[in-house]
């Protein structure tokens, strides 16, 4: 029971971490909360669903298609809704409102065109179950957790050792200076959104398989914000750690205390973290500067 809860928690935490990584990445570069991230995750899930049901592709291709689709949507989203504000050096509040608008717009557009029906992915993994030390664990849960670990590690390697990665880190610490050193900011930010969107696509597919696909599924991203805050906004290892911690803690609360109080607990955790440790476990100092 204990081990099973732990692994379920880790798998949910892995999905939270996938969502939190994209959110955190955008936050670290543009310094605003991208509330449209949840909508991109939802669209990624719909792209994956269309590929899986209409074209009946296999899991690998569905995942790749959804990553590409969500990545492109995220880049378009930035071009249409944020780039003007960014160039005008508008306050981050404006970017945040614009992001909120995008989220409301996309969510309801799907609602109005595709409808509010719940769709299920075809069963890629069936109901296969592994038996580990006497407790049964679903293959999907293990897969989601391992995939999250591997992909976030790959992103970490990309950001810490490639040329583009170095440019992204330079942009994080000083955008103006970075552009003076000859980095094309528009291209850099497009890459950041492409990466964030790609992770959103992965998260969307896993969420869709684990639960269902519907217009408001992006609301789970609230949990990603919490995970990102726990780990420290703008920190990738922090997003991973925050996601896993939140997933495990939530699962334990819902199986040992009360499943109803799970969300109340998560949001209280968020407020406690914001108040007591606003930089999270691994974040840098993010006080608004004079």
């Amino acid at each position: 029971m204990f081990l099973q809860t732990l692994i379920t928690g880790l798998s949910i935490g892995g999905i939270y971490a996938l969502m939190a990584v994209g959110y955190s990445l955008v936050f670290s570069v543009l310094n605003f909360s991208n509330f449209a991230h949840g909508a991109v995750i939802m669209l990624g899930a719909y792209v994956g669903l269309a590929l899986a049901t209409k074209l009946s592709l296999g899991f690998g291709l569905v995942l790749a298609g959804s990553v590409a689709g969500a990545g492109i949507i995220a880049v378009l989203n930035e071009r249409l809704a944020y780039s003007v504000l960014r160039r005008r050096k508008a306050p981050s509040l404006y970017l945040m409102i614009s992001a909120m608008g995008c989220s409301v717009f996309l969510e309801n557009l799907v609602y109005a065109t595709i409808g509010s029906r719940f769709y299920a992915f075809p069963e890629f993994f069936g109901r296969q179950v592994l038996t580990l030390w006497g407790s049964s664990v679903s293959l999907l849960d293990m897969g989601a957790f391992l995939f999250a670990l591997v992909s976030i590690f790959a992103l970490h390697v990309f950001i810490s050792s490639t040329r583009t990665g170095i440019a992204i880190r330079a942009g994080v610490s000083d955008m103006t200076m970075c552009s003076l050193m000859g980095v094309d900011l528009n291209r850099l930010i497009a890459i950041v959104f492409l990466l964030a969107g790609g992770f959103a696509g992965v998260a969307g597919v896993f969420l869709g398989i684990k639960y269902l696909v519907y217009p408001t599924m992006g609301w789970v991203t609230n949990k990603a914000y919490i995970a990102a805050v726990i780990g420290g906004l703008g920190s990738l290892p922090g997003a991973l750690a925050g996601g896993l911690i939140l997933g495990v803690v939530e699962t334990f609360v819902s199986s040992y205390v009360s499943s109803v109080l799970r969300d109340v607990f998560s949001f209280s955790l968020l407020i406690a973290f914001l108040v007591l440790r606003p930089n999270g476990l691994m974040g840098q100092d993010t006080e608004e500067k004079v």
Partner: protein
Amino acid sequence: MDYILSVATLAGINMIAVLGLSVFTGFTGLFSLGHAAFIAVGAYTSAVLTYYYYVPFALALVAGSAMAGAVSLVIGIPTLRAKLRSDYFAIAILGFGEALRVLLENLTITNGARGLPGIDSFTTPFTVLFCLAVSVVLVSNFLRSRWGAACIAIREDPIAAEMAGVRLFRTRLLSLMVSAVFCGLSGGLMAHYLSFIQPVMFTLTQSTQLLAAVIAGGMGSISGPLIASFAFIALPEALRVAQMWRLVAYGLLLVLIMVYRPQGLMGYREITSLFGKRRDDGRRER
């Protein structure tokens, strides 16, 4: 006629909540994604009072507003004291709103997720008009007071305001409380107009609608958000658009406003300034 009157009444109820949020977002410069929670508190408090305890309607309205003000302290004191960044604060209050809704769904006195049916419909169009007028007077007086001036100073530049002697924590908390009180009043009126309330009526969507009205109307104007919120309720009704397309339009509008006209419909001005005499009021200069 009855139909038009009922749309106008609902718009009026919504305008009171928008007025409240405009004190907090428009004049103090803090972004809230959770004000629907205060509407819910007002609605449930006043409805429970008249439903179970037969408290007079006026008293129940006052109690609902007061309760919303008190609840705002629960979230306001820790988060505002910690001087969170504006977007952290927005996320914190969003979380608070969601948590509160989950609580409402699981309490017995609120009848859980099924909602409270059969609340007496005490609210008349006249009550709403009266409350709206009183609210406008109270809010504009508040904004003209020392406290209001402090709020506006904080919106313009928190650090400069603090250096000039404005106490950030107290002023922001007061502004949150004032805005929550009006949202609570709006909730009380709503509960006794629709005669049915349910936790699912107070989600992030409603908070977003309030915020859209404040931003579209102009952050720093009283009349702008009121006009915008009236238009948001009345136009879709007049055009007979389905709820979901209305929300599609809200979202698009938010983005377009931020991109093309971040000052909103009225900017910092009031509707009165469009007609003749400009009042010699330092705070309108900009």
